């Protein structure tokens, strides 16, 4: 495990596989951890890394509970600073974070595979004043094993489709898993951009497509 000091938090970056060729950085869903990607190690020929986001796995929690995807993207960017350019695989909130990074750092992230998982939807496309109450803010749901309870706020942040679309348009290549799961508005907006390609929803097929992408 590589311990990354990032601002005031310490992040756990797990090398899952050594190798040559394109590096892969895996970003887990809400309540997940790097362990969710153990299978990836035997499906990829290059080096594989998986990050524990703040408040998850072996990474430190965020003092004050200010969890939001852009902040998690900063975590993943700290991993990129360490390992260099990489392809991203993200599940749930990790998929949304992968989109933000692919759009924000297209030079470091030539492509990303977006998979469903916890925190994929977020809190909807626009504010819903009827639902905005202190009890909604406090009601975090069941605590997730091994996580800061406040990470469940990563299921509540607003994700406007046009915001997601702007990141998709700035990105290199995005592979979006197909499957029987509810597609939030941001996902549909990303799926409609020219940089996005639908791929079969299973990890094996998704990684196979990612491996065959022609990337400069």
């Amino acid at each position, binding site marked *: 495990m590589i311990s990354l000091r990032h601002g005031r938090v310490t992040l756990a970056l797990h090398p899952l596989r050594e190798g040559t060729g394109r590096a892969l950085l895996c970003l887990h869903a809400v309540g997940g951890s790097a362990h969710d990607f153990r299978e990836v190690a035997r499906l990829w020929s290059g080096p594989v890394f998986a990050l524990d986001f703040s408040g998850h796995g072996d990474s430190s929690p965020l003092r004050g509970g*200010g969890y939001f995807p852009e902040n998690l993207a*900063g975590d993943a960017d700290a991993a990129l600073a360490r390992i260099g350019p990489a392809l991203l695989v993200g599940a749930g909130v990790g998929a949304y974070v992968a989109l*933000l990074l692919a759009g924000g750092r297209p030079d470091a992230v030539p492509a990303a595979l977006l998979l469903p998982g916890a925190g994929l939807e977020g809190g909807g496309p626009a504010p819903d004043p009827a639902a905005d109450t202190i009890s909604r803010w406090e009601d975090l749901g069941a605590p997730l094993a091994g996580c800061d309870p406040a990470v469940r706020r990563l299921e509540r942040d607003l994700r406007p489709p046009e915001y997601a679309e702007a990141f998709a348009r700035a990105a290199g290549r995005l592979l979006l898993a197909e499957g029987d799961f509810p597609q939030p508005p941001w996902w549909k907006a990303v799926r409609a951009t020219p940089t996005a390609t639908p791929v079969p929803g299973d990890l094996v097929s998704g990684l196979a497509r990612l491996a065959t992408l022609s990337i400069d």
Partner: protein
Amino acid sequence: MSEPHYPGAVAPERSRFFASDGVRLRVDAWGDPSAGPVVLLHGAFDHGRGFDLLAPLLATRFHVLSLTSRGHGDSEWVDSYAWQNDVADAVNLLRSLGRPAHLVGHSRGGGQATDAALWAPECVRRLVNIDGFGPPPEGFSPPGVPLDPRPPPLRFRDYLDRRRRAGERAWRPYPRLEDLVERRRAQNPRLSREWLRYFLFHGAREVEGGWIWKTDPEFAGGFGPWRPEWIGPGWRRLRVPMLAMVGTEPDSWRLDEAVASQRLAFVPELTRAAVAGAGHFVHMEQPRETADVLLGFLEP
């Protein structure tokens, strides 16, 4: 250096720390603790002692509590700042009082007070928002700093670059408190040097090599999809009366009246007040007049 004095400024009668979500926040208080409570929320980069002029004037009738938000003044720094955490902190303080309170906020604190009244209407009697009606539609930039028109992904790259340097960032010390006064005065020329010397003495600390701001340098470095046009429509659901207060003088920190009116049109029970001779910092520039308007609006 000894504590400066300023005419009319009264130090809090009591100060304590209050834990919200595990974060230590400073609460300053004036007046009879058994009187009806009034909670005050300050603006961005300010702190709770900015109410040292207004609070004693309200304390003639109320128990006045000023909350210093996370990352500001003597309140604790956190690892990541988000608007909703501050709103929740305000609600947590309100709930700890055991009875509904009047809620007053300035600038960013005014917007957060409004959200706190929406989140927990059972805790709020009446709401006062002092020039806290959000940034202009095109976004906000401090005086002299041009707006950034680039699309979100390009601005996001700057955010990521900032985050990469986060551990290294610290305020540079200014040799004298007077230098902080001049720095702040360049931003807020309507505030007198004498007042700023008093206000910044409590908003800065003396270190080796001079004075540094107490505000967390990481505060306000956030990034998200939030948009100014989201302000307003949600206010339709306010269940408490709101007093919207502004100063009459031009001030680059003050929201354009047409935009403010458009947003305030959503408030079901609205009273408006304009204080003569004040810009954005109404309660600091004209504390007596501000207190008179507030005492007229806030039921005993």
